[in-house]
């Protein structure tokens, strides 16, 4: 069993900005070396690598730039924002089964200054045949479709989405590394913002960012002797539900019961931590409505209750479940959710700029609406 067998012992990140000068390759190497420094582990000890299929830097390039040793485990995970926790989880499996000893997961992306994938040539995938000719072009349009239905079925409103945007923005306002540091967002600004795809407005969308992040995974035994408070990978799940489609999951029994539900059942199967035990959560937030959908999928509230869950400051510090405490994809940086992993680690170390007092457990999720993944992190001793 994977439970607590491996731990995250190093994290690293570059600056985040709309435009950074270095290449994605240089940014990836920078973040990885910072993570190894944080762990106190030499690059030559790295023998495992994991990243996203959408990552432009392959393992050969990374290994030769950071000065890795012989690599004995390497793997990539698909589906964009669904991949982050799975990269870490697969390294944990590789470490726990002896396929490698020092694993590095990373994501480097210049989505801020680079191109928008949806604007690319030809069809991105087979389902695109059934959506793009009608003008359903962008991820925001695809998620807006679920959002409108969610509002219709469960009485969710734009105020609920604003609760998410504002809660996460307040986290970023206190994080000097966040792109939205000190840049407040009021409800009035939210309500007055331009539409991107009705019912979603500008502030329902994540940022467009350049940046890179990385983390280092070793065995629990090695982690005990490390430089940092070990952060145990307590549980790991992936989910690709029966008969589901990525982003346009419209051809199934209930599109509002997405991949999170499948992932959650695996995540909790071997976990000692139950949803009600979670002290803090880092929930994938490419779009605000993914928060209520993820709260439901991961059992933090009942079906259809995710919007109401956001009321009364529940997602803010001191609330029922603080989320995305570095500012998430909405307000720190959007790097396919990898900053949610590193922030989960900081919460477990007790060093977040928005520290939840005495936090012992943290949920980290990847994107709802795509084949997805999640981790439960636990503060080690």
């Amino acid at each position, binding site marked *: 069993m994977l439970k607590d067998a491996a731990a995250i012992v190093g994290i690293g990140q570059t600056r985040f900005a709309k435009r950074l000068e270095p290449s994605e390759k240089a940014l990836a190497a920078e973040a990885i070396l910072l993570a190894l420094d944080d762990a106190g582990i030499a690059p030559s000890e790295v023998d495992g690598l994991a990243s996203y299929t959408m990552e432009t830097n392959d393992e050969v390039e990374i290994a030769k730039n950071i000065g890795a040793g012989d690599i004995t485990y390497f793997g990539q995970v698909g589906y964009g924002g669904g991949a982050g926790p799975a990269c870490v989880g697969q390294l944990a499996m590789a470490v726990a089964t002896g396929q490698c000893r020092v694993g590095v997961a990373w994501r480097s992306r210049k989505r801020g200054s680079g191109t928008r994938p949806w604007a690319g*040539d030809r069809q991105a995938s087979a389902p695109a045949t059934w959506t793009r000719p009608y003008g359903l072009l962008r991820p925001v349009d695809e998620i807006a*479709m*679920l959002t409108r239905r969610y509002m219709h079925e469960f009485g969710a409103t734009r105020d609920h989405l604003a609760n998410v945007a504002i809660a996460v923005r307040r986290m970023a306002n206190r994080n000097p590394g966040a792109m939205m540091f000190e840049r407040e967002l009021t409800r009035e600004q939210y309500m007055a913002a331009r539409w991107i*795809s009705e019912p979603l407005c500008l502030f329902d969308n994540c940022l467009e960012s350049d940046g890179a992040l990385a983390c280092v995974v070793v065995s629990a035994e090695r982690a005990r002797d490390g430089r940092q408070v070990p952060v145990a990978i307590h549980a790991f799940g992936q989910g690709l539900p029966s008969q589901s489609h990525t982003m346009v999951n*419209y051809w199934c029994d209930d599109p509002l019961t997405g991949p999170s539900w499948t992932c959650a059942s695996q995540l909790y199967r071997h976990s000692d931590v139950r949803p009600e035990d979670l002290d803090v959560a880092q929930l994938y937030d490419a779009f605000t409505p993914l928060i209520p959908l993820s709260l439901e999928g991961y059992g933090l509230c009942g079906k259809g209750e995710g919007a109401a869950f956001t009321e009364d400051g529940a997602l803010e510090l001191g609330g029922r479940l603080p989320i995305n405490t570095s500012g998430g994809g909405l307000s720190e940086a959007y790097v396919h959710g990898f900053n949610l992993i590193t922030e989960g680690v900081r919460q477990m170390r007790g060093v977040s700029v928005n520290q939840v007092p005495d936090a012992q457990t943290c949920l980290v999720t990847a994107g709802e609406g795509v084949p997805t993944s999640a981790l439960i992190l636990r503060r080690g001793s």
Partner: protein
Amino acid sequence: MNEVLLPPIDEDCAPFFEGCRQGELRMQQCAETRRLIFPPRPMSPWAPRVKPVWIRVSGRGTVWSFVVPHPPLLPPFSELAPYNVILVALEEDPRVRLTGNLLPREGATIGELDPAAIEIGAPVRAVFERVSDEITLPRWVRGPG
């Protein structure tokens, strides 16, 4: 329409677009369970050893959800925005939700309808618009067929 946004016809979807050219909405069906299969594919997930068939469906359904995209978009949609995109739950199996556009009348463009007139649950029926020599797309208008 921008070539980039026209669907590439492959063997899986060709019967659908052939139906559209003839003014019919066609769906793939599992030959064993009679359940509609969408999107079309080589195998039925409910009877992978039995070749799926194609049938004509009524072209009637109800609006399951809708969005109204605004720029930044791609041509030709940037010029049409704000327009509507709807999901239509088919009468024969509401789990099949076809993406499309609601028009105020047959032959209108996709930006013409006031989005305030769109209601979830409203009945709609398919009409067809030839957008290129090869491609005819289904569109939707209010009312039972």
